[in-house]
């Protein structure tokens, strides 16, 4: 299945600005994008609708990862997905230029909490994205029973438009 992820440049810039803010103790910030999917002939399109930053007080001190979300951060994201209904994509920043890559920690941590969204929205895809200063990469869980797949094309809509093919 071919998966495309689209978001406006305006929203991307907003997310980037938020994720670059320093936190009192966490080494990095994280957030969620609420998204709406649509079927296409070639597969699936995920359209980002809004950004939900994790509140300062919802980080936990942790020396092993850059940012550890507390239970309230996950609970709020789950509640939003349930109420609206929305596909939820976790997002964080690797603060460099060029195509970012999921680290072993990123792969492991996202595999722990992303499938939880199927408990509240079992019929919508969910996933995780890593933003860099000028690029992005992402993985999508289409069903809770299947392993995630790489998002094949990420598009930032704006001027200029940015098309990022999966590496």
């Amino acid at each position, binding site marked *: 299945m071919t998966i495309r992820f689209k*978001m*406006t440049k305006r929203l991307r810039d907003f997310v980037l600005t938020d994720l670059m803010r320093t936190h009192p103790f966490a080494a990095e910030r994280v957030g969620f994008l609420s998204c709406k999917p649509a079927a296409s002939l070639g597969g699936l399109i995920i359209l980002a609708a809004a950004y939900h930053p994790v509140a300062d007080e919802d980080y936990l001190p942790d020396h092993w990862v850059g940012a550890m979300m507390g239970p309230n951060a996950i609970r709020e994201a789950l509640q939003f997905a349930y109420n609206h209904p929305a596909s939820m994509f976790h997002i964080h920043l690797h603060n460099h230029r060029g195509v970012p890559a999921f680290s072993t920690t990123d792969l492991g941590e996202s595999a722990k909490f992303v499938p939880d969204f199927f408990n509240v929205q079992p019929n919508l895809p969910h996933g995780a994205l890593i933003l860099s200063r000028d690029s992005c990469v992402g993985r999508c869980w289409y069903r809770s029973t299947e392993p995630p797949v790489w998002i094949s094309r990420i598009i930032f809509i704006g*001027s200029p438009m940015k098309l990022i093919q999966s590496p």
Partner: protein
Amino acid sequence: MTANRFQRQSFLGERSEAILSNCRVAIMGLGGGGSHIAQQLAHIGVGTFVIADPDIVEESNLNRLVGATAADVENATPKVDVAERLIRAVNPNANVIAIPERWQAKPELLRECDVIFGCVDHYTGRDELERMARRFLISYIDIGMDVHRLGKHYLISGQAALSMPGEPCLWCMGLLTEDLLKQEAANYREAGDRPQVIWPNGVLASTAVSLFMQLVTPWHDKLLPILVEYDGNSHSVFSSNKLAIISHTQCRHYKDTEVGDSFFKTT
């Protein structure tokens, strides 16, 4: 061979050839404006085209339909076939998906497009295309031309507008209004053929392609004008004065959250 073909547009950037060949573009309406755009995008190197028009070539189209011939009138060739022939003659490797009917018959073909060009005659058609484009976060470029009678003379005018999700829309720009839609609905049966000539279509199509190129492979860093007006009598093309008012405003007609397919479910 490929390197030679695009050698003289290499100033568009090192990756421009790859960006353009990966681009999927829709052209809705393959008449006077759309046929020009199809031809230019084929030359530029766009890789995939989705083209839709329910009409066939008629005698009255030959004054402006690029690529159409007298034989097409005789054979009642669909306009999409003329456009496909034109695109393939320039770029045999182009992927062309032709819809010889209204695009609404196969809307899913448009969802994956990166940019949609609207070259339709009616306000309702523009409104429907823009709504679809906004819902699936697709940039929409619209062109329109008109010939107005001014006393004993005529005024040729038109515009090319870029409607990007998150930015001002055709309603913000005043190109769509409730009055225009009502007026069009009221006059629908009486509406005859509006005057159309090839050169203003060519100017507006070129302007639309220029907006597209600045969007996907910018060759300078000046702000992209989202509304360009054309005065055919003074032979001038200019960024609209309306931009000063609307360019920094948030669109109030389309909400960022109203995207996607509301009924989507994984099966």
